[in-house]
């Protein structure tokens, strides 16, 4: 569409293809380099001094694996071997192990060896020339004493020396138990056990203060336990555990410590973190896991290309105070005396600590639910109140409308009451005259008195009916016969009809027409419809001034029709007929039919209007019929 353009804005485009091959090559080279690295798997041999289930070993392994950076493109494989000391030892055993390791790892020579604990390092250093001679060795959990015995380990042997804090642990124990008068130290008979005993005997007196130090060294386990069980709260026990007891029984130190803690009548302290959980109170401990992690980091550095000698390392693995919270409680150690940086184990979290989130969520849910329920209840109450108010209003309105009807009917009602009153007056006058005349007209007087009584009844009957209609009453639901209600209405309206010269004909139902409802309100509907009908024929010639009210019943409904012979209803008025304030009359309020509908609908019925076949209008009311079998028999008036 656009003409070929020499616009400078487009001139840069052709240069793009020149860059592309360069880019592709760069990407290709990068990918190749990556895949070359990916093939380079590093093997790490981890050599443990004792057997695989010693908790310290497990912790070291956990730390190592967490620290060593292994990934898809630089995989590192860990292989673990266990010397199973002290159960297995001696030159023959070592030769076997050597041969085993050489052959086993011929195909997967290690790129680094990690020694865990003293014996493993010792084994490696002694046999290095014959076993993976130039592979760097990273030692961990190696005591300073062992390291000192190899002044020339070589530059490719590296690691952080371990120093168990026996004295720190003892000092802490004595601080926590200021009432203790006796410090009991338990050791065993293995070579390492004896080494520890020696160290302790040398160092403890300087830190024990005024406390008596007692050594249970090299005793059979049963004797140790028996002795410990007799201790009281005036004592504190320290033990590094032992590998072998006085009977030659082999242990791992943790199990020995567990036995002691279980039997002891005094708190037991130890310097190794696997002791935590055995019943030992705690101690100042290096973390085996952290030591494993430290070794792992050194392996990472070496694999990253650092020479072992160049790696910066701390002098010793720092120790930390660790305690078993259950034991703290058991021995009544003051919580305030536990330093803030202490690693506390087995501290049973409170309900709040444990379930804080769940509790908060649950609480919020419960509160919301409660609020919802409260709101619903409130809503229900409000709706009920509104319904009551509507019902009250409907009753009020119906009453007001009945009063209005009564006002409309005043003339005919007055006539209705005046008639018997007039008769009474006149009868009384007649009787009075008879009495004045002195004539003996006893029969006449009797007749007159009877008539007076009858007229009086007649007047009060009108008033009673009227009062029933006009009374402000609560809406009530009772069974009643529509035909009977209509007959009352007929009586009330008869004088009005007479005055207006309207013929009103009634066609009652052939059977009873019972409904449940408020009789007065239904009568009001009928009066309203009848007065409307009379209005509509008011200006009709004599022969059309007629209204027919019929009651019929079918299976389910009582039907009431009010038929007039007037002008009928204008089609445009039909839909609005039952609306409030709609009126076709000059002086109409437009409430009558609207109230009629409200009443009928409150009775679960319906009301509608239509024009008659030839002339006039027909109003229909349908109300649910009451099953007569469902109510007790009652006499009809």
């Amino acid at each position: 569409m656009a003409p070929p353009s020499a616009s400078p804005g487009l001139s840069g485009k052709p240069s793009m293809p020149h860059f592309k091959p360069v880019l592709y090559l760069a990407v290709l080279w990068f990918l190749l380099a990556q895949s070359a690295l990916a093939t380079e798997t590093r093997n790490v041999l981890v050599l443990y001094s004792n057997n695989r289930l010693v908790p310290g070993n497990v912790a070291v392994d956990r730390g190592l694996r967490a620290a060593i950076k292994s990934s898809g493109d630089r995989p590192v494989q860990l292989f673990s071997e266990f010397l199973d000391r002290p159960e297995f030892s001696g030159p023959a055993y070592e030769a076997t192990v050597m041969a085993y390791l050489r052959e086993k790892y011929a195909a997967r020579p290690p790129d680094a060896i990690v020694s865990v604990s003293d014996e493993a390092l010792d084994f490696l250093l002694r046999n290095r020339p014959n076993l993976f001679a130039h592979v760097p060795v990273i030692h961990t959990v190696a005591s300073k004493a062992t390291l000192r015995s190899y002044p020339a380990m070589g530059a490719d042997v590296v690691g952080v020396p371990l120093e168990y804090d026996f004295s720190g642990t003892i000092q802490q124990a004595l601080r926590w138990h200021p009432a203790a008068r006796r410090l009991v130290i338990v050791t065993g008979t293995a070579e390492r056990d004896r080494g520890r005993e020696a160290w302790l005997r040398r160092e403890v007196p300087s830190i024990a203060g005024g406390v008596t130090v007692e050594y249970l060294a090299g005793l059979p386990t049963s004797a140790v336990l028996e002795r410990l069980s007799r201790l009281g709260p005036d004592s504190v026990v320290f033990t590094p555990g032992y590998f072998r007891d006085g009977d030659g029984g082999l242990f791992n130190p943790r199990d020995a410590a567990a036995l002691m803690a279980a039997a002891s009548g005094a708190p037991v302290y130890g310097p190794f973190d696997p002791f935590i959980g055995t019943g030992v109170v705690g101690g100042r401990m290096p973390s085996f896991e952290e030591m494993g992690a430290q070794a792992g980091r050194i392996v990472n550095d070496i694999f990253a290309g650092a020479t072992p000698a160049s790696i910066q390392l701390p002098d010793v693995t720092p120790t930390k105070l660790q305690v078993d919270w259950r034991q703290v409680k058991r021995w009544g150690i003051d919580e305030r005396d536990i330093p803030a940086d202490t690693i506390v184990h087995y501290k049973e979290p409170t309900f709040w600590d444990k379930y804080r989130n769940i509790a908060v969520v649950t609480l919020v849910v419960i509160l919301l639910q409660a609020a919802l329920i409260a709101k619903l209840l409130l809503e229900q109450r409000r709706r009920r109140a509104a319904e009551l108010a509507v019902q009250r209003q409907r009753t009020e309105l119906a009453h007001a409308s009945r009063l209005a009807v009564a006002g409309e009917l005043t003339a005919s009602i007055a006539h209705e009451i005046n008639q018997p009153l007039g008769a009474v007056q006149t009868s009384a006058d007649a009787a009075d005259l008879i009495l004045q005349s002195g004539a003996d007209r006893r029969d006449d007087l009797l007749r007159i008195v009877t008539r007076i009584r009858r007229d009086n009844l007649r007047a009060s009957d009108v008033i009673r009916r009227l009062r029933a209609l006009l009374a402000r009453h609560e809406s009530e639901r009772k069974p009643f016969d529509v035909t009977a209600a209509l007959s009352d209405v007929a009586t009330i309206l008869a004088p009005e009809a007479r005055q207006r010269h309207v013929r009103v004909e009634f066609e009652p139902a052939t059977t009873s027409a019972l409904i449940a409802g408020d009789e007065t309100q239904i009568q009001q509907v009928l009066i309203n419809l009848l007065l409307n009908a009379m209005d509509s024929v008011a200006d009709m010639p004599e022969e059309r001034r007629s209204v027919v009210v019929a009651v019929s019943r079918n299976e389910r409904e009582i039907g009431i029709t009010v038929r007039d012979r007037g002008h009928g209803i204008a089609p445009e008025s039909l839909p609005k007929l039952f609306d409030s304030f709609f009126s076709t009359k000059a002086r109409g309020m437009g409430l009558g039919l609207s109230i009629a509908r409200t009443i009928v609908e409150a009775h679960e019925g319906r009301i509608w209007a239509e024009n008659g076949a030839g002339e006039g209008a027909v109003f229909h009311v349908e109300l649910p019929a009451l099953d007569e079998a469902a109510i007790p028999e009652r006499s009809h008036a």
Partner: protein
Amino acid sequence: MTDRALIHVVDDDDSLRAALLDLLDVAGYDARGYASTGEFLLHPPPDRPGCVLLDVRMPGPSGLDLQAALQRYAVTLPVVFLTGHADVPTSVRAMKAGAVDFLEKPVARDTLLDALQRALARDAAQRLDRDAAERRSARLSTLTPREREVFDRVVAGKLNKQIADELGIGLRTVKAFRAQLMSKLGVATAAELGRLAGEPQDGSS
């Protein structure tokens, strides 16, 4: 007994009607009751002094309708209305049409009897007037046609000469007819003649 007044009570209310009949009986009147306008019309009242005590509002033709019908048929019975609800237009209409009174139910005995008394008095007066007129028209009927022609012109205030011209007769003949008819009618002066002529000339029915 024929001079005793007969009061017609037209009221659809059986009880009130009976009470009224009792009262009127005790008060010394003859009374007859009718439940409706139609019933009254079906039983023409005898020629007796009396009046009608009439309810306004009744099924079918109302009291006012009956009042109009009575006038149409020249029944001169005075009407006293008795109504349950006296509204102004109805009462005005009734009074204009010649009702004696318009009473409201319930009515005090004295008020009622007083109204009936007045109605009967009016009826009596009407009857007297009617009797005199009848007597006069009876006398007038004794005149010959020629005497009547002269009479009409005399009471019309015409002079003898004018009468003679109109009738095409002589002045003396006119004078003779005058003397003759004055003698027949029993009057002595022209003024008396005039009074006689003041009565309805077709007074009798």
